[in-house]
C-alpha cells in the first residue's frame, strides 16, 4: 500500500522525537561543571573544627618500628 500523507507525517514525528531524545542524551553529557566558576571554601563557618587538644602529650619514643 503506498504511503499516505498521514503515514509520512507519523514517520516524521517519530523521527523528530527520536532525534530530539538522542540530542537530549548527548546534551546531558555536556560537562557543565567544567565551565562553572570555582567555589571558595576557606574555613566555612558551618564545618566542624578540628582542633588538636592543647593538653595532649605526644609520644616521642620510637619503639618497635616507630
Amino acid at each position, binding site marked *: 500500500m503506498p504511503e499516505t500523507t498521514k503515514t509520512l507525517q507519523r514517520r516524521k514525528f517519530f523521527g523528530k522525537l527520536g532525534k530530539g531524545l538522542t540530542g537530549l542524551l548527548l546534551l546531558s553529557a555536556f560537562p557543565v561543571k567544567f565551565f562553572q*566558576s570555582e567555589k571558595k571554601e576557606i574555613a566555612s563557618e558551618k564545618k566542624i573544627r*578540628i582542633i588538636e*587538644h*592543647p593538653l595532649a*602529650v605526644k609520644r616521642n619514643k620510637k619503639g*618497635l618500628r616507630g
Partner: protein
Amino acid sequence: MNNSKNESSGKDYNYWRSLKELNNNPEAFDQKANEFMKGVTDDFEISGMSPVSRRKFLALLSASVAFAASSCTNYHSHGEIIPYNKKPEEVTPGIPNLYASTCTGCSNACGILIKTREGRPIKVDGNPDHPVNKGKICAIGQASVINLYDPNRLKTPVAISQEGNSSINWKTVDEGMIAELEKASSSGKQIAIISGRISSPSEKMVLDNFIAKYPTARVYSYELFENGVRNAAWNRSYAPGSFPLIQWDQAKVIVSLEGDFLANEGHAIENIQMFSKGRDGFLNKDFNRLYVVEATMTPTGMAADYRLRLKPDRQLDFVLSLMNEIGERTKSSIKAPSGTSSLKDFVKNENMLAGTVEHLVQDLIDNRGSAIVYAGSLLPEDVHVAVNALNEMLGNTRLYRTDQAEVLQIPFAQKQDLENLVGEMNKGNVQVIIHYDTNPIFDLPQDYGYADALKKVPFSIAMLEQENETSALCRYALPISHDFESWGDFNTRMGIFSLRQPVIYPLYSTRQKEAILLSWASGDSKFYKDTVYHDFIMNNWEKGLFASAKSPLDFRTFWLTALENGVVVLPENAPAPAGFKAASLSEIKPPSKAGRYTLYLKGNYSIGDGRYANNGFLQELPHPVTKVVWDNYAFISPKTAEEFGLEMNDMVEVKVGSRKQEFPVFIQPGTADGAVVVELGYGRRKAGEVGTGTGVNANILMSKDAPVTPFIYNDAQIRKASGAYKLVTTQEQHTIEDTRAKDAHKRRGIIREGTVDEYKKNPGFLEKEEREKISMNKNPEYLGVKWAMGIDLNKCVGCNACVTACDIENNVPVVGKEQVDKGRIMHWFRVDRYYSGTAEDPVSYTQPMLCQHCDTAPCENVCPVAATTHSPDGLNQMVYNRCVGTRYCSNNCPYKVRRFNFFNFRDHFADGYYLQEPVEMVYNPEVTVRSRGVMEKCTFCVQRIMQARENAIEENRELKGSDVQTACQQACPSEAIVFGDANDPDSIISKFRAHNLGYHVLVDLNTRPNITYLAKLRNIHPEV
C-alpha cells in the same frame, strides 16, 4: 515574458496564468516583475530593519558563546593552598602523631596508641608499653575511631518530648539539674545513677564526691556480660575476691566448657597471646592441647584439638560425672556430691564421642598441675563451683596467676538491688535517675519492669554519645564526649594504671560524663571548665599514685611521662591464695530436669552488648564462624533442623515461658542437638541510621528469674514459623556432605594439615611441592628488598582484628547488606573458614586470605591498560588512575582477592552516608579513596613501606625488612602474621619460606605466591 518558444522541441507553447496575461495586459507584467505583492514589503523598510542581519546575528551568537565558555573557566588555576594561621608546634603536615591512651570499647581497658594526622585521629593500635595487651587491640578497638565521627552523635543537650527534641544549652542543664538534685536530696528521695562497670579510680572518687554532696544518691553498676557469677563461685569455693587470671601459656591441657576465652571472655587479647605461645609452628614451645565442650561452634571451638557438643544446661552434670571418674581413678579426697551419674552413663545418654571423653579424662590425669579446666561466664554458679573443685582435685591451681589479678572499683549491683530500685521507682521514691552512659531498657530483662517504672520517675536524664532506647523515655539527653575527646585513668589490673588523654578537642558541644557529675557535685552551676576533670585526675595522682610510687622525678615530669607512655606499673602483691572449702561442693543443687530444647543466649563477636550497632564496619565484619554479616540468627544443629523441617533462611519461633521471638535459621555444623543459640545485642529500636532494625532482638527473651541463668533456658519451645529471611554470608554455605565441595580445600592444597606427632616423627611429612616449574613469564630478579608475608595457621584464631585494621588503614568502604549479597563486599583481607569431617562433629580451619602478590601473577598480564604491574621489590602494584574497570584481572585471580568498586561508595552510593560531614575525616590521607569503576586489593600496606623508605632515606641508611609492619601484622594478637624481606636470610620470613611446614595456596597453578602458610597441626593422640 512570454516564453512562447521552447527551443529544444521547436514547438510553440504558450503558458499563461491568468486571463490578463493571456490578453497581454500590462498589469500582469508589472506583477510578474515584482517579487512581492504591493504592500507586502512595507513593513520591511531597510531603514527600519535591524543593522544586524540574520547571518551576522548567528555569527555573533556563536562567537559570544565561545568567549563565554572560555572566560568562565579559569583552567590555569590549580586551586588554592591554605597553610595554618598559627601552626601548632606538634603538627607537621604529612607526619602522623601518636598519642597513648586507653580504649573503653569493653571493660578490659587496653592501652592504645591513637594515630592522628593534622589533629584528626585516623587509626588505633595497641600500646606496646601496656603489659596486658602488649601492643595489640581487638576489632572493636580498631573500629572505635569510626564512633568518633558518627553522624548520629548528639551534638547538644536536648529536651526529649513527644513532638520532637529541642536543643537546650548547658547552662540551663546545669542550673536545672543542681536545683533538682538538691530538691531530691533534701526531701529524702533517692537519686539513682545507673552506670556500667566503673574501671577508673578517679571516676569512683567523682561518684564518692557526688554521693557526699547528695547523700540520697546511689550507684547501680551493671553490665550484661560480666564475671559476677564466676566471682560468686570463687567466693563459695575459696574466699571473697575475684576469680584469678590463668596462665594459659603454662597449660599443657586446656579443657574449656562453654568458655570462649579466645574471642569473648575475659581479656581475649591477653588470652590469645598466651594461648598461641603453645601453638607455634616453629615448636619454640611444646604444643598445648585444647578440648572444648560447647553448644555451638565458636572461635575457641574452631581452634580446638578435640571438640565435644553439649547443651549448656547439661554442663553441671558433665563436670560432676567427670569429677566422679577422675576422683575414682586418682583416688582423690575431694568427692563429687552423691547422686551424680557416672561418666560412662552420661556420655551414652548425651550421645557424646566416648573416645574423645576418654582422651580428655586421661589427659587431665596425666597432666595434673599443668592443665586447667575453664568454665564460661554464662554458665550457672554451681558449674563454676564444681569446676573449681575439679581444678583443686587435679592440682591445677598452680596455673592461677599470682602476679596479677583483676580489680573492680565498684561492686556490681545484684539482682536484688535492681529489683529494689524498680520497686522504689514504682512507689515514687526515686526523684532523679541519671543514666550514666547505659541502656537498661534494652539490656535488662523485660520482667524487671524497668521501662514502666522509668515513666514514674519525675526527672530522668540520660548521658550518652548517641540517642538510644533509654534516652527516648527520659526527659533530657546530655551528649558526652567520645573516648578520644576525654581524660581518664583506668585500673582494671593490680598495679597497672593506664591513662586516657584526649587527642582532639570535642567536635561538638559535649562534655565528659565524669566532668558533668563533678560540676553537679560542686553545687555551683558555674563550676564547669574544660579542664575540670583533667585537674581532678592530676590532683588524685599527685596525692595517691605519685606518693606511693616514690619516684625520683618531680610530679610534673612524672605526669607528663605517664601521659607519653600511657601506663604506669606499680608493683603490688597479689592476695595470698586462700584454702579450698570442700563444703562448697555439698551446696551444689542437683541439675534441674532438662527439657528437650535449650535456648542459649550469648554475646556476639562484633558489636559488644549492642552498643556499637551503629558502627557499619563492625556490622559488616563477618561472624568468625558463620561469616554472616549484618544480622543475628538462631544456630540450630542439622538434626534438630531436620526434626522441624527447617532449612537455611527459614524462620523459627523460640518460646520461653510467655516470651517468644522469631529468628532466621542458621544450620551450623557442630551444634549440640536440641540447642538453639542466639546472639544478643541485635534488633535495636533506636541506634542511629545504621543500627536501628539490624538483626532480631533476642534480649526480650531474657528473664531475671530464670531457673538456670538469665542466659540459659532449658524449657524452650521451638516451632517453625512462616516466612523466610535471607541471611547474607561472605562465604558460601555448601552442605558438608556435598561430594563436590567436600574437602575441596584439602584436595586442592588450600589447607594443608597434619598432627603434632606426625610432624615430630617426620618433619618433612608435608612433601613440599617442586617450585622449579617452567613459566612463560620471565621470573624477575629481585635485587634489594623483596617483600613477602608468612601466616602461621596454628596461631590464627579468626578474631577478625586484622580485617578491621586493614579496613581502617586502607579506607575500605562499607557497602551494606544488599551489596554483600551480590558478592561485592570490599574487605581486602578476609578470613576463610573451612570444615572437614561430618556435619555433626566437624573439624574447622581458619585461613586468612589476601592478595598473594604472586611473582607470576595471572592478573598482571591480562590487564589491557597495564594498570597492574609488578614492582622491583616484589609487590603487585595496582594503579587506580589507570584502571578502566575491565575486571579481567579479578576474573583471572585464582584466590579471588581483588575487589571491584561497582559503585562510587564514597560519594554517590545509596543514602550518601559517607558524604555526611564528619564521616570523611576518618580517611587515611596516605591511601587513595577509590571511586567507581576501579579495582582494588591488598597492597602490602605500600603507604607504610614508602613511609619506612622515607625514614630510611632521612636517616641515611638502608631500608630493612623489619622497618615495616603491615596493618594486619600489627593488629594480630597472636603474631600469626609475619612480614619482611625475603632476600634477607636472617629475617623471620625467610625462615617461614624455608620451613618444613611452609606451603603456598594453589601452588599447582604456578602463580608463585609470596605468602607462605605454615600448615595447621592438630595436637591429637596418634590413632592406633
